[in-house]
């Protein structure tokens, strides 16, 4: 039992092995360029946030006494600790990625399972969330607390916070294993936090101030330290045991297995090979977690944009803002789903290339699915125009532009996408399949409508601008055949490179 607490390894060699493997994994990864950029950003964020914490450590006293000159700084700080702990737990559960360790590879090697799990726990400790309290506490104690309360109080106070924060870390590791239920867990936690704040402020339950008083007492009596140690002990034990139990292939390590009935779309079977491809696309969306959640996230954005729409006089309710909004709202499907077009099919792309159907049918199916979802978006928006008829022309413009211009842009540009997507993985913070292409897309997709509209806007002929945009959409629909010829040629030129990229895991 005691073993779990000692996070030291009798085999430094094993540590070295794992670290070398992670190192190689990073440098030899197919998406090295992207990883480098992402890590550079991460490094920058790390340094920036570290400075923020140190800054607050030094200056929080001034900040608090600046807003509440007559108050006791420590008392207020103790109260806020309550929320700090809640937010800390929330952030850890939702955002902190646990370190990667490909357990299945190591399970059969002569390394004891317990040791593997210990290493995993050990590695997980090194992240900014765990460093943050230290970065804050050291300057805070040095500049204020030691002078005010003496060494003993400062040390006990700091260590209680650190111990509690660390136990949250291990608790979060445990909770992290419920990956699939993460959104629900997150919502529960956010809801809980909201409820606390509400009760605290409006109903006079004073959780925070009671917590503050209790925390002060715990610190001066030293009970806080004992509670911290006990909590840390149990959370380490808990996560250790939990991980040991789940380090089997059919437990936590296995991929998601579903036995749920999904819609069958059998009516599409009547429409020949095109119908088959469309059916395949719909099945793809409904049966796999990533595309499904990608779509759901997209739909969740709609209310936000609607809110801005109705906010008369705001940037979004006129001019460029309104154009953007209309194109965006009608194109929610494209912007979310088509930004990974072709990548969705990456795991069976060889079949797509050699199956008994024409490549043109495949491309056409992608287009038809886009039109289908854009039309659904339009039908959803249409009733809105009974109350606000002035928006109807904008919706029509957005619809035409999306199916007559933007859909083609996606079909063309996405042939440069070579990134494989593993369909079974979730969508939350999953950037698999993303590359510079997704950022580049914004230029033509959002820039083009602006570019067309801008001259009319600056000449004061906004109405003519809207009509011109519509005309572009209609022209795209009329020129469908020649445009598709170009798209087909482009796809055929790029397909070998796409297939080669998609084969790389």
């Amino acid at each position, binding site marked *: 039992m005691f073993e779990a607490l000692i996070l030291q390894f009798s085999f430094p060699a094993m540590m070295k092995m794992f670290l070398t493997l992670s190192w190689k994994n990073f440098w030899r990864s197919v998406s090295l360029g992207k990883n480098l950029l992402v890590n550079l950003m991460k490094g920058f964020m790390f340094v920036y946030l570290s400075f923020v914490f140190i800054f607050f450590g030094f200056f929080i006293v001034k900040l608090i006494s600046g807003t509440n000159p007559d108050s006791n700084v420590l008392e207020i700080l103790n109260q806020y600790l309550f929320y700090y702990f809640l937010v800390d737990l929330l952030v850890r559960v939702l955002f902190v990625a646990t370190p990667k360790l490909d357990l299945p590879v190591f399970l059969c090697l002569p390394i004891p399972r317990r040791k593997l799990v210990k290493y995993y726990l050990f590695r997980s400790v090194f992240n900014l969330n765990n460093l943050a309290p230290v970065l804050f506490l050291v300057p805070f104690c040095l500049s204020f607390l030691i002078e005010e309360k003496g060494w003993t109080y400062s040390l006990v106070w700091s260590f209680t916070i650190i111990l509690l924060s660390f136990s949250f870390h291990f608790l979060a590791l445990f909770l992290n294993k419920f990956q699939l239920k993460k959104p629900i867990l997150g919502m529960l936690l956010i809801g809980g936090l909201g409820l606390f704040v509400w009760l605290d402020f409006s109903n006079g339950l004073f959780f925070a101030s009671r917590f503050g008083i209790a925390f002060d007492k715990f610190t001066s009596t030293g009970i806080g330290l004992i509670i911290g140690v006990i909590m840390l002990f149990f959370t380490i034990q808990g996560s250790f045991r939990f991980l040991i139990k789940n380090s089997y292939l059919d437990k936590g390590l296995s991929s998601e297995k579903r036995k749920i009935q999904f819609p069958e779309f059998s009516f599409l079977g009547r429409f020949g090979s095109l*119908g088959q491809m469309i059916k395949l696309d719909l099945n793809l969306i409904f049966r796999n977690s990533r595309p499904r959640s990608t779509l759901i996230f997209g739909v969740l954005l709609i209310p936000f944009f609607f809110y801005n729409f109705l906010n008369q006089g705001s940037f979004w309710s006129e001019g460029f803002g309104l154009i953007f909004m209309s194109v965006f709202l009608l194109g929610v499907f494209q912007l979310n789903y088509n930004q990974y077009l072709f990548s969705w099919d990456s795991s069976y792309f*060889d*079949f797509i290339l050699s199956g*008994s159907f*024409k490549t043109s049918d495949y491309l056409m199916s992608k287009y038809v699915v886009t039109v289908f979802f854009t039309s659904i978006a339009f039908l959803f928006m249409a009733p809105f125009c009974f109350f606000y008829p002035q928006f109807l022309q904008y919706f029509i413009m957005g619809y035409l532009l999306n199916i007559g211009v933007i859909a083609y842009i996606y079909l063309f540009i996405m042939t440069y996408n070579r990134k494989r997507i593993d*369909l079974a993985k979730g969508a939350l913070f999953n950037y698999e399949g993303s590359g510079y292409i997704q950022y580049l897309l914004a230029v033509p997709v959002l820039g083009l409508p602006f570019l067309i509209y801008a001259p009319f806007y600056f000449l004061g002929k906004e109405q003519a601008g809207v009509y011109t945009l519509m005309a572009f959409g209609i022209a795209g629909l009329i020129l469908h055949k020649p445009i598709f010829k170009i798209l087909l040629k482009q796809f055929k030129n790029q397909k*070998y490179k796409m*297939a080669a990229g998609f*084969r790389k895991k």
Partner: protein
Amino acid sequence: MIIIKDLQKKQGRYFQLSIEHLQINQGESFGLLGNNGAGKTTLFRLILDLIESNSGTISIQGKPVHTTEDWKFITGSFLDESFLIDYLSALEYFEMLGKLKGVSKEKLLELIETYRSFLGDDMFVKGKFIRDLSKGNKSKVGIFSAIIGTPKLIILDEPFANLDPSSQIKLKEILKKKQREEGTTLLISSHDLKHMSEVSSRIVILHNGEIVKDENTNENTLKELETYFAKFVD
């Protein structure tokens, strides 16, 4: 059926495959052998237009695969799992292929019944997707999908791998029958010399991307093959 001319595929400066001339006739059962890295899968991928050659042409029924798509409708193929759409159930995948190849549902169900002893029951359990199947069953799904629609040409890359012994025997019978009764052209690669000498009417050995042996099979083939591959042992 298939004519390959001056085909070259390079990776960097090295030749993955270099075939000056190869003709595979209609109804031939063509077995491809070679140690790992010899270029078997590369050749199959080139025939199926999945990768681009550096030079040369491959044509199926006189039409180059690179520029036409007609060959897709007479070819059934299964190279690896990247041919399987794993979020469909086996039956749905078969139905989809059936529709694409113009096989009615009744005909398809009949076909499944004919091959039932090979396919087994496990893959037809309701709610089970291809991604939930064992490796062997995934192979069976792939092999059967290549057979649907009586294609004139069937291309299978190591179809015997992952199959249990009984299924291997059944697969041999299926392939022989296809060739004998329907005149199907078969292109099969495998590391199992015995299976290959039984199924194939002609065997080609690739070594470092080049054809080093091209012979029709006879009663001595197995022995010759064993002698040939034994020489790499030391």
